[in-house]
Structure formats: C-alpha cells, structure tokens
C-alpha cells in the first residue's frame, strides 16, 4: 500500500469520525436558520472526499523514505523531551522545566559531540535566568511556579 493510500485512508477515517462527532452538536435559541453543525459538516465532508480522492487516484511511484532509521530514533527522543516539558512546567515551574529543556535539546542537537558536559550545563543557566527576568519583570508576565514547588515557597 502506497503512502498516499495510507494518508487517504487516515483522513477518510478522521472525516467520518468528525462527522459522527458533529451529530452531537446542537443549536440553541440564538442559532440562525443554519445551525452550528453546518460548518464542521462541510469540513468533514471535504475531508472525506479528499480521502476518497487520495485512495482512488493513480498512485505515483514511491519516493524515498521521509526519514532514515536513525532519523526516526532522533525524532523519537526529541518528541519524548517535548512531551515531558509541559508536565514539568506545570508541576516543577519555569526555571526547572526550562533548564531541563535547554540542557536536553542542546545535548540532542549536538550531533557531533563538540560540547563538554560543563558547557551543556552552563548554557541553560545563561538562558533561563535572563528569560525569567525578561518574562517576569520586564514584560510583567507571570510564569508557572509549579504545583509541587508552590507550597514550598509560601
């Protein structure tokens, strides 16, 4: 099965699921003649038609893989790092979470291993502190303190 056929099947499925979800959308006393279900139905319908189109059309020859095996491994590591970040931000706060994100990503991105551990630890400190000051004091934008940290600093 070609990649286009797989993509077509997936978006066809998404379109059908969304159309089913749209049946639960109901108007109210403020709705006009056309209710809030019209637009999502049109979008889902469009997605279904595109999915069918991708499934039925003449398939081109397969192009080279999107990523190599090593590439997928790298994406996996970075994805895990990024998924963890919001949780750390919520529970441990901006300073800890940003230090973590900066340290891990600079380590991952240093493919040729040119940076020593010391430099990889200094970099997050050099960025997190000014960023904190910039957001918190210059912009007066409160940053997450962290649900676990908050009771400790009160």
């Amino acid at each position: 099965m070609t990649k286009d056929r797989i993509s077509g099947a997936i978006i066809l499925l998404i379109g059908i699921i969304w159309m089913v979800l749209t049946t639960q959308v109901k108007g109210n006393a403020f709705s006009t003649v056309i209710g809030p279900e019209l637009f999502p139905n049109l979008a889902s319908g469009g997605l279904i038609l595109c999915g069918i189109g991708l499934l039925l059309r003449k398939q081109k020859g397969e192009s080279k893989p999107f990523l190599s095996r090593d590439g997928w491994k790298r994406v996996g590591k970075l994805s895990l790092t990024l998924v963890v970040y919001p949780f750390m931000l919520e529970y441990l706060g901006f300073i800890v979470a940003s230090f973590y994100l900066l340290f891990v990503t600079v380590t991952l991105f240093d493919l040729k291993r040119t940076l020593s551990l010391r430099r990889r630890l200094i970099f997050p400190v050099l960025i997190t502190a000014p960023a904190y000051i910039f957001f918190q004091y210059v912009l007066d934008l409160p940053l997450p303190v962290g649900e676990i940290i908050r009771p400790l600093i009160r």
Partner: protein
Amino acid sequence: MELLQFVFENLFDPFSLLLIFGGTVLGVIFGSIPGLNGALAIILLLPFTFMLEAELGIVLLVSIYVGGISGGFISAALIGIPGAPAAIATTIEAWPLTQKGGAVKALGVGTIATFIGTFFSCIIAMFLSPIIATYAVKLGPWEFFGLCLTAVSLVISLSKADVLKGIASACIGFIIGSIGFAPIDGARRFTFGISQLNTGLALGSTMMGFFVLSSVLIDYGKGNMTLPSVAKQSIKGWGFTLREFKDNVWNIIRSFFIGLGIGFLPGMGSGISAFVSYAKAKDSSKHPEEFGNGAIEGIFATETANNSTIGGAVVPMIALGIPGDTTTAILLGALTIQGLEPGPLLMVNDPGFVYVLFGGLILASIVTLGIQYFGMRLFPKILSIKFMFLFPVIMVFGFNGAFAQGNSIFNVYMVVVCGAIGFLLSVGRFPITPLILAYILAPLLETYLRRGISYTEQGALTFFTRPISLALIIIATFSIIRGLLKKT
C-alpha cells in the same frame, strides 16, 4: 489652523516622539520573536496608557501595531518562522531567499515594501476614510465570505504540494478552527468536556506548534542542523538594485491597492491581503517558476499588501467601530477605555484625535524604516548562532509565549499536540500553510456563511445572485479546479 496646531503639538512633542520610537521598537521585538506578537505587546502596555492622555496613549499603541507587523517579517526571513499571521505568505519567498545566502536582500526588500505599504496607506486612509467607510458598509456577509474563501483557495492552489492534500489540510484547519464556542450562537463544539477548549485553540499554540515544533522535529530527524549562511561581502544600500526595484514598481502598486482595498473591508486582516497579492504577483510574473524559490517579486507583493492593510484596517475601526483583526479589536478597546466612541461621529466630534492617530501610524512607519535599515546588517548575525543553541532558546520563548496568552498551561500542551499533528502531516507531505490560514479564517467564514444564508429569503442563492460575491466564488472555484487539473 487650530486643528493643525493640535495635531503637531501632540505628535512632535518630545515625549510623544519617545513613545512612538519606544512603541515601534517594542512592537518589532515582539513581532520577531516566535510565540510573542504585537497584539500581546499592546495588551501589556494597555494599562500603562490609562495614565496618559488619549492622544498619547493611542499613539503608543498604534506604534506597537506597526512595529509588530514589521517584526513578524524579520523572523519569517531569517529563520523561516513567521512571527505573525500577516507574515505567513512572506515566509514562502523570504526564507528560501535566505537559504540561498540572500538574507540581507530579503530584509531589504521587506523593509522598503513595509514602509511603502504603511506610509502611503495611512496617508490615503487619513483623507478618504469618511468616503471609504460609506462604500465598505454596503458590502455584506456574502462578499466577505467570498473573499475569505478566495484567500484560502489561492493558498491551496499556490502550494507546490499536491492540491488535493492542500484541500485536506485546509479542511483540517477548518475543523480545528471550529473547536470551542460557535460564532453567532455560542454553541459548544468538540470540547470533550475540557473547559479550556471553550475558546478554541490559542493562536500562539497553533503557530508555535505547526511552524516551530514540527519544523524542528523534521530538521533534527533529517540531520539538517545548519542555518543558512549570509553573503559575506559588504552590503550597500538596501541589498537590492535599483533595477530590481524598478522591475517591481507595478507589482508594488498593485499589491498596495489590493492590501488597502481588503483592509477597508470590516473584519478582514493582513493575512488575507498578503496571499491574494502573492497569487496575483505570481500570475502576472514573467517568471512564475521562480516563485517558491526566493523570488523578490513575492516578497514585494506580500509585504506591501499586508502593510497597506494597516492603513486600510484603521478606517473601519475608526469610522465604523469594526475591527479588522485581533490587534485592531484591542485598539478599539483602548479607544473605548479612553472614553472615545469609534464610529461615524468620531471624525465629527474629535477630528484632532483621528488625525493624531493617523499621524502616529505614519511616524511609526518612518521609525520602522530606520530600525530595519540599520537592523538589516545586524539581524542576519542571528544566523551565525548555531542551530543547537538557537532553536532551544526559540522553543523556550515560544512555549512560554503560548503560556502567556491567557496565562494557561493548557496552551503549552496544545503546542505539543499541534507540533505532533504538523509533523505527521509533513510525513504525509500535506502542506501546513493552508491549514493555518483555514484555522485563522474559520470563524469568519462560518459567521459570514451563516449570516449570508439567514439574512435573505433566497438563502444560499444570494451568494450567487450578488455580482461581487459570485465573482469571488468563481475565482475561488477556478483556482482550485485549475490546481487539480494541473496535477493530473
């Protein structure tokens, strides 16, 4: 005479000039950092304006507005990440030009186009706003729907990728845009019991996720960790030749009036005008094959249009009390807080204020020109920072910029979700730009569609019986069909 004196006193007072300069710089900074934007800067400074007189307060805020639109272009050109929705179209040409070593040229073209668009549109708007408002209000939801639909269809047909996949991306964008309270009746849709989704996905989350996170995942996965180099020879003037400018004069004039015209229409924003003018520039170009590879015609078109929309958008804001986009909506709020009532009577009751506002926009455009001219040689130095240092910093600012919009950690989670969706779409070779534009325009499209159908007894037929609406729908349909047929 008294009016002129009042305007000059308010605009050329040293404190006022300082506010204009400071506001513009702040706007450029906010606009150029992914995750932040000019609207956020205006929100932050809004309480500060309460302490100022109305004229000074609005001059500060409009300076940030102008700076923010311009700043979005800088990150679009230098790192391929639009700092604002208005700069999405510009990224298509500016980023490939930077990748070929033409960062300074991209910045130079964008700077001049920005200035031409903002400066002259504000002058025209200043004198013609009462007349234009009279005509703009005669258009209805049918025409506005047609215009939004045309913008989305042009983006789809222009994308190098598969048109069918472009349509699918746009449909996904419409679906994402319909999450939350529906327009008109406020019916709750697709929130799955999550209260934070009542207001839909935050723009900061979607921009950061789809543009920044997904591209970082792809670049890292492919091992493309080198930023473009900048041409080392010393740059004279604006980075492009007089000949290149002369070759684009008609392009600039046409794009200017497209942006101005779209800006005059209540509810339309810079994103639409940029794409419409880009499509027109490509159609009219002698070398359309160069588009998508760093064609300066494209940059002249998009930046002139999205900045001429500024002057245009202020007209319905002032004369009708209808905002053109999020930023003008906030500016309207600022006017109301100062005790002013936007609408047809503002020009009559307080003409001095209106002229000070336009004057502030004009002066801000001059300040932006200066900042960007001197910045042209400095900003590209950012490309000498290694990928491994630059993008982690961008991610921290972007994530927390998304948090700052609504002080919500949920926005940060959504950045990750949008990044994942964007990455998966890229694996399937689906273009992202139609998705983003469709997401931004979804509420407008739905509002105009539902109003258009319910306003007359003819219902949906009215879209086809009003000439301008019909013409726009034909253009939209034709561009999609042409794109589909080209690929078969």
